[in-house]
């Protein structure tokens, strides 16, 4: 095993960047430029570190790797316990990739309080990676909730016209669920005598207690995913958030709910999870169909993509609660793909927003004439969102359908119907914005080198994961199979 604490390094490298930024002087043009440079290089170094982690990770080995353990609050059984399995590695990679892209995306568009902006993003990165490496429930909780603070600032300071309202809505609503999550953790800890997540997963909990804890956790995770009908904070948050904020929100923050299910509900409360499968299925199916229909009629591009996110996350939750390694692997794949694709789509909107300062679909048209490169990339990401084979969007969706079908053909059909609806709203959006007549105003210039640069890694990954997703499945297959086995045992045998 590793001799140097690579996971701690991943968490604290961005903190080092923050410390450096704090040392620079007053905000002037020179310092702003420095702040950008420092942040970009810090986040790139973290990406390199994440890649090293992925390369040194051994998917053949069971359990968690690169474990770090230090006593924190011994009297409460709380420890600074880090570790990763294949699932964590993938989400760390996703996070480490998206943060530098966000920095590049805001390179010229964020001109006020540059330093604070950069601090907020580095703080986000540290906290998000913290969530993915934490193996202690309390530590997890601290990271999980602390993320709200920088996100609150990103929306509240650099957001649109109604940013403060949206920021409060976002924080208060997600916080409401989180209180219950904390209670759930404390209840669990009191039963297991520890907050160590390995210990919690190994403790068998009576079914009655499992139910209540499950519901409390569900309240928190379902808001984050978000699942229908707890999703309405998301469109507002996205619409008001600056582009980079939307990218992180859609790319990583929405994955935290699903990640919570993977780390808490499913492994620790398998019996309750098995019991609540019908609830999750119904809510997921509604999310897929209902929000797709709502997305169809949106006039605001960001709002449309926000609703489409809810629909795509419906496929994720459908897969996560299916006792099949195919479905769970597919759901994780879908989370990753959505992380890339929705991030790219918010960047796509951001590019034209920077040029014309409007998110209204009706204000655009015929962009293909002056922006052919933009049109081509937009097409690629739209198709990935539609789930076309040979893009990352297809593989996950397909495996979820294949995994769910044996359980219920009806719910598999709902997921498949989502394919038609997603094609409807995405292609219609694309047609209105990129094709058709040009409304008044000067033609918009095509992508700059900087903008092309931020899209390119996403485009390559979307195609690569569509054609060669084996790398993902090597990492998630083991953990997914274990979760599926637990869920299946709970469904057939009852009890934990």
């Amino acid at each position: 095993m590793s001799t140097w604490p690579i996971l701690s390094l991943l968490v604290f490298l961005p903190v080092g960047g923050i410390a450096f930024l704090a040392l620079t002087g007053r905000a002037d043009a020179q310092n702003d430029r420095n702040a950008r440079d420092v942040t970009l290089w810090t986040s790139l170094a973290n990406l390199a570190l994440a890649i090293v982690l992925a390369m040194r990770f051994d998917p053949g080995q069971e359990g968690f790797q690169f474990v770090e353990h230090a006593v924190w609050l011994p009297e409460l059984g709380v420890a600074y316990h880090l570790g990763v399995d294949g699932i964590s590695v993938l989400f760390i990679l996703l996070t480490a990739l998206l943060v530098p892209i966000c920095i590049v995306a805001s390179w010229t568009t964020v001109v006020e309080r540059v330093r604070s902006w950069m601090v907020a993003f580095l703080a986000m990165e540290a906290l998000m990676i913290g969530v993915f490496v934490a193996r202690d429930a309390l530590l997890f909780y601290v990271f999980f909730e602390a993320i709200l603070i920088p996100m609150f600032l990103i929306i509240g300071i650099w957001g649109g016209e109604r940013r403060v309202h949206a920021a409060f809505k976002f924080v208060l609503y997600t916080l409401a669920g989180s209180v219950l999550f904390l209670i759930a953790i404390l209840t669990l800890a009191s039963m297991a005598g520890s907050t160590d997540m390995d210990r919690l997963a190994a403790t068998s909990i009576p079914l009655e207690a499992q139910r209540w804890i499950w519901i409390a956790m569900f309240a928190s995770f379902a808001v984050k995913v978000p699942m229908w009908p707890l999703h309405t904070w998301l469109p507002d948050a996205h619409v008001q958030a600056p582009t980079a904020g939307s990218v992180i929100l859609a790319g990583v923050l929405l994955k935290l709910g699903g990640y919570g299910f993977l780390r808490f509900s499913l492994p620790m409360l398998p019996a309750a999870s098995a019991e609540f499968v019908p609830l999750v299925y119904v809510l997921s199916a509604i999310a897929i169909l209902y929000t797709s229909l709502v997305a169809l009629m949106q006039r605001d591009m960001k709002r449309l993509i926000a609703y489409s996110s809810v629909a795509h996350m419906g496929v994720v939750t459908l897969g996560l609660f299916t006792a099949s390694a195919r479905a769970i692997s597919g759901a994780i794949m879908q989370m990753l793909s959505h992380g890339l694709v929705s991030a790219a789509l918010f960047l796509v909107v951001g590019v034209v927003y920077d040029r014309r300062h409007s998110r209204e679909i009706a204000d655009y048209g015929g962009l293909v004439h002056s922006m052919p490169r933009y049109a081509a990339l937009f097409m690629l990401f739209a198709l990935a969102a539609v789930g076309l084979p040979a893009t990352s969007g297809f593989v996950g969706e397909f495996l979820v359908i294949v995994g769910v079908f044996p359980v219920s053909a009806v719910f598999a059909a709902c997921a498949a119907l989502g394919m038609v609806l997603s094609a409807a709203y995405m292609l219609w959006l694309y047609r209105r914005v990129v094709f058709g007549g040009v409304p008044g105003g000067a033609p918009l210039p095509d992508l700059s080198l900087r903008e092309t640069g931020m899209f390119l890694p996403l485009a390559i990954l979307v195609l690569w994961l569509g054609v060669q997703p084996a790398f993902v499945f090597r990492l998630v297959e083991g953990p997914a199979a274990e979760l599926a086995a637990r869920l299946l045992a709970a469904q057939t045998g009852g009890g934990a």
Partner: protein
Amino acid sequence: MMAVAAVFLPLAAAVLAALTARRAPPVFAGIAATTMTALALAASLVVLAGLGDEPTRVTLATWIAVDGLHLDWSLRLDPLSALMLVVVNAISALVHLYAIGYMAEDPHRPRFFAFLSLFTFSMLLLVSADNFLQLFCGWEGVGLSSYLLIGFWYERATANAAAIKAFLMNRIGDVGLVLALAAIALTFDSLTFDAVFDAAGSTSATLLGLPALEVIGVLLLVGAMGKSAQIGLHTWLADAMEGPTPVSALLHAATMVTAGVFLVARCAPLYAGAPVALDLVAAVGAATALFAATIALAQTDIKRVVAWSTCSQLGYMFLAAGVAVPAAALFHLFTHAFFKALLFLGAGAVIHALAHEQDLRRMGGLARRMPLTCAAMVIGSLALSGLPPFAGFWSKDVILESAYAAHGPVAMTGFWMGLAAAFLTGLYSWRLVFLVFAGEARAPAGVVAAAHEPGWSMRFPVLVLAVAACVAGWWAHDLAAADAPFWRGLFAVTHHADVPAWVPVAPAVAGAAGLLAAWLLYLARPDLRARFAARTSAARAFLASGWRFDALYDSAAVRPIRRLGAFLGVSVDRGLIDRHGPEGIGRAALAGAVRVQFLQTGQLHHYALVVVIGAVLFAAWNLLIGGLW
């Protein structure tokens, strides 16, 4: 190696055309793409010639391997895929060549050729697949490329609408196909052709309380109906005419609508155990054959007549597959590819010559101006209406004969419907020929005077296809029999009873009768036609609208769905859930909280500092207390 070239050269052509779009001279893309497709054709001919008795496969890479489900990117070489490789590449190469001339004035030629080659590649990927998922990948690629090509003239609102309509209609079918794949994966625990087909004969699995093979068969049929524009999911095909004519030729002859027929033929081992699903295939096919033929009668747009004829001919292919003679279906697919491409390219020459006029009512008298095109269209129409010895005669004859011989109630009904459709086919195809080439010119004099034969790049493909439409049926009539040496035992041989002597003659007679009726109405006795027309205007309007399917779908599905979407978005999502959910909680919290006022003073950036301090303290805590390092 040859197989890889046959499939991937068009992809290389697409990439090349896209990458050189801005730098190379505009003619380059067309010439390069045409050359590379022609090379792909040569490679596929080598593949066909070198075919062994057993299927072979070329594995390229692993695609998905998870939880026992293993799927490769690989090429399967057997008589079916090799035949399709040749047909697709042959038609595609000719259409590419034709498009060099047809699109000569379009500024976006490189993009056009990139899409055209991508279209070809997708179909090649589909037909050479060795598992259902790669087939699906090609299947969706075909849908995507057709979307791009139908909407190629993106300034036109109608082209955009037609492109989206085609994609969505296909996607509805795809729901069936995806669920079929899920059902296959559940039943056979594999998606590889060999594994599935080998196990299909002995399975007695059930799904949803029904025999699994029947369920799979019906779901596959839904997918095939979307792609092959069978009744119910057919409305996109006529609108797809919004694309440039070479696209129509390729789409109708080789690269798209034939995919459904291919799928049903490929899955013949599954359908062998699903008699009910098979009857459904036959019923859908027969219904489409007759239904589309009636619509073709009343169209006034030259391309739409040909488009509806495709729909009808695809119905014949489904009928053949449905009476368990997939070899006959593929034989008709083969002959149809040539004469349908010929008809479209001929129609394209007419449209090109008349300054983009597509209305039959403004054509006429073109035989003298365009004798070559006229001859080509006559040959194409002879083949389409199934007159001997032209290509369509051989294949249509076999299909109807097999339907009669199959003797089931569905097959017998299918026979009579197919026979009626054969009569209508003769009528509408000769109506087209007479309206375009005979009689007096109805176009403005200047346009007629300027009408001329197209250049060599458009003329050569038409000539080749005309020859093929003459001889392909006779030359390849072996294909119709499942026990022909060519198929190498790919299809189960069905022994049907002998048929009465009149049955094999009937389709040709029906076609000839249609020709005669057209001659009577459009050449010999125009007065009869005028009287007939006056009495049937309502019926003709009904037929011209395609039995009002578009209006029905619009009022029964499209508009209600939009209204539902708007209702859910405004009234439910914002008015109900949001108002009483997050906003309610937010209001409650905002009302009483003093800290809110503090946060609204505009001093928010101070909070960034708090984050830093918090994070640093957190780090320090761990360093000191935890003794981490």
